[in-house]
């Protein structure tokens, strides 16, 4: 790992999906804020895991970072370059340095293309010669544990794990620095999951890659991440070092999340905190702290005021009134999370 320096910095990212409407019926109304003012940094060479339950906005977040979805507002800084303001040519070269690995390896490929063509596609789009593409494919296949002859086959001839390897090979094709892994193993069987996770960590070491690892599986995240960001309803509620978060989660949601993980330890006491209710729809976000309706420790202030993000002693950032109070910080003294 090289010297810690920031590769990606997201600041106050917001994505609001506008409501659907016809040409005549432009319905007035609030859009859905899938991502609501998210800021974080990723250091070069590290793995930041973004965890949360379905609908919390973590996948949208990943796509905002590479402008696959255009953010409504906010800033993304990649290696010192303001991504959202970059012109087309600049953006094209930057985009090559950021790659995405998809959750469902079955649908991530055009079923009518051979594996070779699939892996070569990013290169061809980047203007590589046919010859170089072929060579690079030959390099990449063994790298991800596949054989040369696989290049002429079609995706449907492969198993799920193998397909994810193809996806990884494709994402590596143009020598990226930053890879966004969107639930890369959640569609795989347990025994295959481990293989792919190992591959990802090997590659990270080999090519000095930086990962944003999006997942709902806290066990996998526990293994692969350096730092963890927990998202709830479009916000990051807690972000910090993996060990700190897993050993002593501060935000009640993080606590509940970790407590809910079923562990292969029969007889373990099950007296852990259970959340009631379920994650509300992003269309009607609760007032105040958006977690308060499910929070076992909710206080009157939680109903009214959006908690500000505070930094704890171990460098963690948490957005919770309870934490702020225990730290004895006046919430109003802090800069609000979003302008």
């Amino acid at each position, binding site marked *: 790992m090289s010297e810690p320096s920031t590769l990606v910095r997201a600041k106050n990212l917001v994505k609001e999906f506008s409501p659907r409407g016809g040409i005549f019926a432009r319905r007035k109304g609030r859009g859905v804020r899938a991502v609501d003012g998210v800021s974080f940094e990723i250091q070069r060479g590290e793995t930041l895991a973004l965890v949360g339950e379905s609908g919390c906005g973590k996948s949208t977040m990943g796509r905002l970072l590479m402008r696959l979805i255009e953010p409504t507002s906010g800033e993304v800084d990649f290696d010192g370059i303001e991504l959202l303001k970059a012109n087309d040519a600049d953006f094209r070269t930057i985009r090559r340095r950021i790659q995405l690995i998809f959750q469902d390896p079955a649908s991530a490929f055009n079923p009518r293309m051979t594996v070779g063509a699939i892996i070569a596609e990013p290169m061809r789009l980047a203007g590589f010669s046919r010859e170089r593409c072929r060579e690079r494919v030959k390099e990449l296949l063994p790298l991800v544990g596949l054989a040369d002859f696989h290049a002429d086959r079609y995706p449907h001839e492969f198993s799920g794990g193998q397909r994810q390897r193809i996806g990884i090979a494709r994402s590596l094709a143009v020598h990226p620095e930053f890879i966004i892994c969107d639930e890369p193993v959640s569609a795989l*069987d*347990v*025994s295959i999951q*481990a293989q792919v996770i190992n591959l990802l960590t090997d590659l990270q070491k080999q090519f000095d890659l930086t990962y944003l690892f999006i997942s709902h599986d806290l066990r996998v995240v526990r*293994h692969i991440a350096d730092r963890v960001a927990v998202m709830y309803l479009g916000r990051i509620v807690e972000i910090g070092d993996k060990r700190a978060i897993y050993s002593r989660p501060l935000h009640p949601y993080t606590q509940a999340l970790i407590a*809910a993980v079923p562990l292969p330890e029969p007889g373990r006491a099950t007296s852990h905190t259970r959340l009631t209710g379920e994650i509300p729809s992003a269309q009607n976000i609760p007032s105040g702290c958006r977690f308060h309706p499910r929070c076992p420790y909710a206080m009157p202030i939680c109903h009214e005021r959006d908690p500000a993000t505070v930094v704890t002693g171990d460098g963690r950032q948490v957005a919770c009134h309870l934490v702020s109070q225990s730290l004895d910080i006046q919430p109003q003294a802090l800069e609000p999370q979003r302008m």
Partner: protein
Amino acid sequence: MLMGTLRGTPLLSVRDLSVQFRTDQGLITAVDGVSFDLRAGQTLGIVGESGSGKSVTAMSLLRLLPPATTRIARGEILLEGRDIIKASESELERIRGRDVSIVFQDPMSSLNPVLTIGRQICEPLRLHLKLSRAEAKERAVDLLGFVGIPSPRESLGSYPHQLSGGQRQRVVIAMALACRPKVLIADEPTTALDVTTQAQILDLLRELQSKLHMAVILITHDLGVVAEFADDVLVMYAGRMVEKSPVSQLFARARHPYTQGLLNSIPPFGDQELEKLPAINGTVPSPFAMPSGCAFHPRCTFASSACLEAVPELASCGPNHVAACLRVTELERMHA
């Protein structure tokens, strides 16, 4: 009334169950020689990866597989001594939903989208218990309250899409429990749910089981869920059972290399950190190209030449513990 069977004698007894599918490419054996016993109040976890035959086993228990393409090739399914395989369609209809119920993975698609949940819960009540419309409705309200649906009476008129995922699964469970079945089969009941919801549903199931003293078959791919929930565990691989034991024993001392591999490949959650996860190499075999001998041998680090030839039988390797591995004793010695 659930005490009709004495503790100790099995409520459900499956012997050498084999199920075959007719496909375009020919006949395949999806489940081969599965046997287990289930007593009232007991929970059996069936664990396996996709294609291991665990869901097919579950569906066969109620003979829910389409007869046009499936065939139960061998075996017996004895429910309180009656063989379900020999039962007529009308006998089956009496058993289903009354003696044995099933909960599927995806609560959304398990519910008919155009019928109210009240109507769907009342269906088995009216059918099996011959309740009147009003009686059934009252029972449905009770049931919904029982599974933790807030304001159950109002919910009767709701449609599935108006509920959240967790509530839907609660409704499905209420439906399955409507006639107080002796056996509840839960086929990946929490896979489609979020972690926090999964925890809630598992808690609910556990609570219901202890209240109703049902036998539960829990089918899952998640060893963590099994560890929290089951009394006994049956591990399946490529259609065959490879190991069966009480849950504590399995997690403490798995005997089959596959089970061991499976346990090892779960990322640890405690304080220890691993550079690399111990993964099982290779992939699950296709049902059309089953390896000879032990189906696991191509992926097994301990495979010997014998494993290529003989299909291992289940052999006892401890109290209530069986495993289907030729080298189970050798390995035991190796580890010791």
